[in-house]
């Protein structure tokens, strides 16, 4: 891993980050529970309002407002509530409705598969090549260390498709679909088959209200309701895609060789998460709608802390990073996303991706 810290400096960096981590953890409590409950209530209200407005879609502004409310409700459920609750950020409350082990989110990836592929694999092995399937979702080449093959020529198209169907892409990333399809039935891993069946079942149950039941209830407005639901799902997919891709793929994020995992210290873990993640800037609304994954760095270093605390933690973390001369990768949402798109195009071709000089030096 590329950094200029002496072992002693690394050690004391680790201690300072740990101190930050523990001090916030000790403060987590009543205010966080109140916060997330308020968010949940607001999210439910938005969902009901959105569905209601869509029923009035003979009046075009109602269609627009309804679709917007529903998109927001879907985004908030996945990002600020579901993703964070499933991380166990609110497990301390020991409340049944906030329990990471029993929460079922509105995402086609069943919660228990998510806890394995995301909480465990992705968060433990962040950006470790060959282990972290979020690194390109098995189809994209997002770092030059990944070997090129001709299939990558079409990767801008794959990426666009992934953006529109992001739930599916993320839901399936614990399954090697290509291998699975071409395998003989007898060779298939029964556990993988079971996981696929579960995803299929959940996907169906999740699709039915949006594409069958609510349109049916709307009678003559069925097409408008169907379309509103479709758009809301697409908006959620594109937004989550944007947020997640800005989290680990902008210029300056490092990827790692599996060898760096042997006997990894806490300090090294923090450092690897710092180097492998990137933030983007924005106002409170942007942070909120990203489920505070605009603070991907803090999220990866402190995944068990309620995410709404990341902006405050970021201030303290940046001071620590500056002190040790470590790069804290952040930029505007547009700038970070642009660098991801550029990279996707460049790495569709064989060879290296040259980062802008300023970054290469950092």
């Amino acid at each position, binding site marked *: 891993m590329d950094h200029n810290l002496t072992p002693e400096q690394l050690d004391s960096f680790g201690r300072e980050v740990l101190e930050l981590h523990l001090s916030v953890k000790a403060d987590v409590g*009543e205010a966080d529970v109140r916060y997330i409950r308020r968010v949940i209530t607001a999210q*439910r209200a938005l969902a009901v309002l959105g569905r209601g407005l869509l029923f009035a879609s003979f009046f075009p502004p109602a269609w627009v407002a309804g679709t917007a409310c529903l998109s927001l409700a879907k985004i908030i459920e996945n990002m600020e509530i579901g993703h964070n609750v499933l991380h166990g950020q609110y497990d301390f*409350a*020991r409340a049944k409705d906030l329990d990471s082990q029993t929460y079922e*989110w509105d995402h086609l990836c069943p919660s228990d598969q998510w806890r394995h592929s995301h909480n465990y694999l992705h968060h433990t092995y962040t950006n470790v090549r060959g282990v972290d399937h979020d690194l390109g979702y098995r189809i994209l080449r997002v770092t030059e260390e990944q070997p090129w093959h001709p299939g990558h020529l079409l990767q801008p198209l794959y990426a666009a498709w992934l953006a529109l169907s992001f739930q599916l892409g993320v839901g399936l990333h614990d399954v090697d679909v290509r291998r699975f399809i071409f395998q003989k039935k007898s060779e298939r891993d029964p556990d993988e088959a079971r996981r696929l069946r579960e995803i299929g079942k959940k996907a169906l*149950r999740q699709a039915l209200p949006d594409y069958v039941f609510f349109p049916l209830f709307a009678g003559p407005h069925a097409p408008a309701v169907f379309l509103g639901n479709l758009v809301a799902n697409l908006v959620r997919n594109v937004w989550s895609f944007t947020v997640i891709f800005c989290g680990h793929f902008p210029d300056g994020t490092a990827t790692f060789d599996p060898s760096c995992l042997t006997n990894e210290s806490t300090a090294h873990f923090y450092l690897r998460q710092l180097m492998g993640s990137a933030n983007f800037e924005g106002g409170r609304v942007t942070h909120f709608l990203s489920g505070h994954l605009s603070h991907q760095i803090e999220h990866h270093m402190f995944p068990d802390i309620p995410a709404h605390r990341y902006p405050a933690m970021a201030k303290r973390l940046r001071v620590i990073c500056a002190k040790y001369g470590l790069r804290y990768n952040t930029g505007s949402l547009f700038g970070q996303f642009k660098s991801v798109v550029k990279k996707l195009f460049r790495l569709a071709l064989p060879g290296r991706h040259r980062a802008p000089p300023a970054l290469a030096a950092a």
Partner: protein
Amino acid sequence: MHQVESPSRLTRTRPSAASRALGVIEAVLAPLVYPKSAEDYLREVFPLLSRREILAEVVAVRPETPDTTTLVLRPNGLFRGHRAGQWLMVEAEVFGVRRTRCFSIASAPALHQEKGTIEVTIKARPGGVVTPELVWRQKPGAIITISEAQGTFVLPETLPARPLFVSGGSGITPVMSMLRELALHNQAHGATFVYYARTAADVVFARELQEHALFSGAEILVWTDDEPSAVSAPFGRCDARADLSAHVPDFAERETFVCGPPGLLGAMSALYAERGASERLHTEAFSLEEHTSRDDGGTEPQVVFARAAKTQKGSRTLLAMAEDAGLTPRSGCRMGICHSCTCRKVSGVTRDIRTGELSTDANVDVRICVNEPVGNVVLDL
């Protein structure tokens, strides 16, 4: 220690019409709100509504003494009533964390039948986590989760002729429920109610006891350590043996219900055993005495908490050891009756500290609050 009735053995009554109607509404809405439940949405508007959890609204908060408060609860339709003397679990949110504790129902079953409310009377424990919150900071209007009523320390169906109730401190609650029930049915005549409190100001339900003495025909004897209170004619230090011999000479012939601190329970058990009247003595304890294991002379036992990847040496209860190791497992009564703390034992031998019974099987559920390790134990915690 009384025999515990597990909740599954309680008789199941038929669901009420309201609950069935709610079931239909939920089933219709379920496909629309998947993967949430309709209840999740409905509860935002009707906070007591549930088909899964017994929820109760705190309708009133009534201070009783400087450190004791009565909460009047109105449970939803899932609560199936109680018998005089039973207790329930209360799940309260304290500083954002849900915690479960057991409390006896102090009100009479008749109150629930008539008004739909139940009352718990809670004393703040110094240094306690939950009780100070409930006693001093609980606000009316809050919604809390409770359990069904449970326990077999109850007033028998066929009322005993001249029951004797003996209690101390906060242990007054289950026997108060019995006295109230008797009085509401005009059956308190001939009953004797003995109560020990530290000071006159600590006498819970002082006014009501006075009224019982005057109007319901029950004999009320209250002892306090300092001076006689309004209701306590005699006074002096708690000495159940002397007091009963002097003031209730026929105690050994009477069905006796006792609840209070371990010292009182111990004295009463010894006294009744001596008189050969143990089968007439019914007791309820609020706590076990702090337990440290007998020393077997062998190597120190060790517990591995598998999920947390932590190991703890020692010979306290598994629950205490888990807490020592920095874990926060669920617990409630901490005396083996509520099953809140049940947890899977992966391997190893444990001993029940109440009965001495050994559990040697692998992959069984144990109540960690009343089991200690014998040798090496692995828990799925």
